[in-house]
């Protein structure tokens, strides 16, 4: 016999993500899920971002990595509370992993929590973590066609950050093409062009985050 099911396959992940979202709301902690390909500069962007935002906000970072604690060590050096999740081969973080990790964090004392997802432009897009803000980082050496090739990730993001703009003079990267393609499937996508290495353009990004943190506090 045929049994009508009509259930989302990732419903378990989404239910846990919803619970996490409620927890973040009750603690008024702004949570940012940062996703990108490997090597796009997530950790460098975080180092530069924390440098500014830690002056105003209690901030923690959850580092998702397939293995090693290299990134977590770099973040810990900024003084931010850092927690490592090793996925042991899994290509993305899911909400159950995050739920477990949160047992080791005191959310009530946190204004801002960054989650650095596993470097991968495909899989993390399918797994909500209950975050407030979803950010995709794209770097100039990856090429301007990435939003066209990986629309899922860009469709679900609130903001797109183009990193390594200091390399634009040396590579053929059409900024307008990347921005336009990303917006094809996401009319509200915000766009920031930065160089985490030189600091260029970071002010707009950190100011935007600071505004979101204050907004959530006031809500």
């Amino acid at each position, binding site marked *: *016999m*045929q*049994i*009508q*099911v*009509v*259930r*989302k*396959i*990732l*419903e*378990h*992940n989404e239910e846990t993500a919803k619970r996490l979202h409620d927890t973040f709301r009750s603690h008024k902690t702004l949570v940012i899920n940062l996703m990108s390909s490997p090597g796009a500069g997530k950790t460098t962007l975080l180092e530069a971002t924390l440098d500014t935002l830690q002056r105003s906000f209690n901030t923690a970072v959850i580092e998702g990595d397939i293995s090693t604690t290299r990134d977590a060590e770099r973040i810990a050096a900024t003084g931010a509370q850092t927690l490592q999740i090793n996925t042991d081969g*899994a*290509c*993305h973080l*899911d909400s159950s992993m995050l739920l477990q990790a949160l047992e080791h964090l005191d959310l009530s004392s946190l204004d801002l929590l960054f989650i650095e997802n596993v470097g991968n432009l*495909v*899989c993390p*897009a*399918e*797994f909500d973590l209950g975050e407030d803000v979803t950010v995709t980082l794209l770097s100039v050496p990856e090429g301007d*066609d990435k*939003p*066209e*090739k*990986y*629309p*899922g990730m860009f*469709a*679900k993001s609130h903001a797109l950050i183009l990193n390594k703009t200091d390399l634009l003079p040396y590579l053929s990267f059409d900024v307008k093409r990347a921005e*336009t*393609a990303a*917006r*094809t*499937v*996401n*009319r509200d996508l915000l766009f920031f062009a930065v160089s985490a290495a030189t600091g260029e353009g970071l002010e707009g990004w950190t100011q935007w985050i600071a505004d979101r943190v204050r907004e959530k506090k006031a809500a």
Partner: protein
Amino acid sequence: MHEMSVAQSLIDIIRSEMDKNAVTTLQTVKVKAGRINAIVPEALETAFWSLTQGTSLEGARLELETVPLELECGSCGTRFISSTEDTLLLHAECPNCGWEFGHRVITGRELYIEYIEAD
């Protein structure tokens, strides 16, 4: 390779539905996946196959149907299906006004089990 996680969740739901309906033999599971949902059909089939080997679900058929990418034009509001044949490269010019970006995704991101056939 998130298809492994997807296949595991799929199997969990199948088992719970089979228990609920007191059936024991699964013939078919029908899954609908949106076009910009990054599911590679072959990878999901392989994952499903390997996770069901040697279990009571062994031999069941996985039917995967792709849901087209339907967009609502960011300029005039017309709804249209993105017509590109290349499954990866997006080209989405509104057939009514020619606008190319700022569209809203209506369908194309879903991932769900539609039905199972079991006895």
